[in-house]
């Protein structure tokens, strides 16, 4: 569903992605972990070209990423993205946040878009907040609204960049539960997270990044119980000691 071949990315002198190869199958859930600054966000953002890459190739559903213009917009419509800071549209209600792209990008009739949006909001447990503005919601509710907004486009793949890192601890669970149920339904997902419990529970594969490289890829049990590299061992030791 998603494939990266020899992807390199620089920020000026800084080599943030070093020859990344990664393939994600349909319905697969890949969790990306690694120390801060290792390039996880950049990897995630390069898949819908919020970051351009300097070398290599990225394909989504077999199609190489278009460079700009309508073709890129069409590709992004098929790739859902959930941000650490939610990024709900501050001037629109929760319902309008969810219907905006279906109406304007997919040309879904308004009534249908609203009905589908309500179903999604119900599914993530915030149907009662449909008429509220984002600022009137808790962080956990905002992030669930953001997930519903992404799902409304019926994406082929969902990207999550630390979706729970901005949340108060008591709200992390409600968001992870929504993500886990998505994973169980067969959504293709790439999830950057520090939630090792979620990785163990929901991931098909864990990808460990350090200094712009994929150091290790393994099934969750294997990665957590018997990491193959020294860097992964010391990373796990530092996260688990918290």
């Amino acid at each position, binding site marked *: 569903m998603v494939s990266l071949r020899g992807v390199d990315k620089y920020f000026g002198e800084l080599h943030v992605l070093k020859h990344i190869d990664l393939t994600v199958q349909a319905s697969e859930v890949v969790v990306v972990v690694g120390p801060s600054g290792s390039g996880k966000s950049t990897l995630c953002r390069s898949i819908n070209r919020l970051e351009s890459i300097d070398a290599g190739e990225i394909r989504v559903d077999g199609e190489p990423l278009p460079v700009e213009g309508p073709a890129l*917009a*069409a590709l992004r419509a098929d790739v859902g993205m959930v941000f650490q800071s939610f*990024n709900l*549209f*501050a*001037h629109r209600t929760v319902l309008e946040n969810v219907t*905006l792209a279906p109406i*304007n990008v997919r040309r879904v009739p308004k009534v249908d878009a609203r009905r589908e949006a309500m179903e999604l909001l119900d599914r993530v447990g915030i149907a009662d907040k449909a008429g509220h503005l984002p*600022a*009137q919601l808790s962080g956990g509710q905002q992030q669930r609204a953001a997930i519903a907004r992404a799902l409304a486009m019926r994406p082929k793949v969902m990207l999550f960049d630390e979706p729970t890192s901005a949340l108060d601890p008591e709200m992390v669970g409600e968001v992870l539960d929504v993500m886990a149920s998505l994973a169980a339904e067969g959504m293709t997902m790439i999830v950057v997270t520090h939630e090792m419990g979620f990785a163990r529970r929901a991931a098909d594969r864990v990808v460990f990044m350090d200094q712009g490289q994929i150091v290790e890829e393994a099934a969750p049990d294997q990665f957590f119980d018997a990491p193959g590299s020294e860097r992964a061992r010391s990373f796990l030791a530092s996260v688990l000691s918290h």
Partner: protein
Amino acid sequence: MNPLIDNLGLVLEALGTTLLMAVVAGVGSIVLGVLVTVARVSPIRALRVAAFGYVQFFINVPLLALLLLAVFALPDAGLMLPLTPTAIIVLIVYEAAYVAEAVRSGVNTVAVGQLEASRALGLTLAQSLRLVVLPQALRAVVQPIGNVMIALAMNTALAAAVGVVELTAAVNKINLVAAQPILIFSSAGVIYMGIALAIGLAAGRVERKVAIVR
């Protein structure tokens, strides 16, 4: 008796011209100012440069000079328009530069995440600007735009200099006969203050109504 009241018909007609210029040029300058801002943040370099040049030009040239140019030079170039529409057009293009500055500062207040989220959903840049960025930017600059509108309303008085019979021109004419400059011009001043106050209050109301809860 106040000579302005003795000439109420003329004063009201002139006030009508002043308000017409203020309203039409106000709406026009907001529309044009937003378009200039869009050009200023567009990915097309030529548009950005042109919009920057536009703003710099009109902010650095006196309005009176533009009015004189339009009224006396354009007919020479074969462009004939009645006086009031000419003045309105000059006010639109002039004040649009100030509106564009205000709107741009509003665009800068919109978090990058808002644009990223809308691009990530598959909205084109034009859609993202129209549906996400500009609505938030405009809500953030209601007061600054209100101030530009107040300046615009005051600037309509300069049209007197090129022969438009608006409020200032009319009271000037009345004073030539009545010769009570202090009374006449301070009365006119009070009318302008009323206009400014009305715009300011309206801007305040609009601002409270559209403010984004954060």
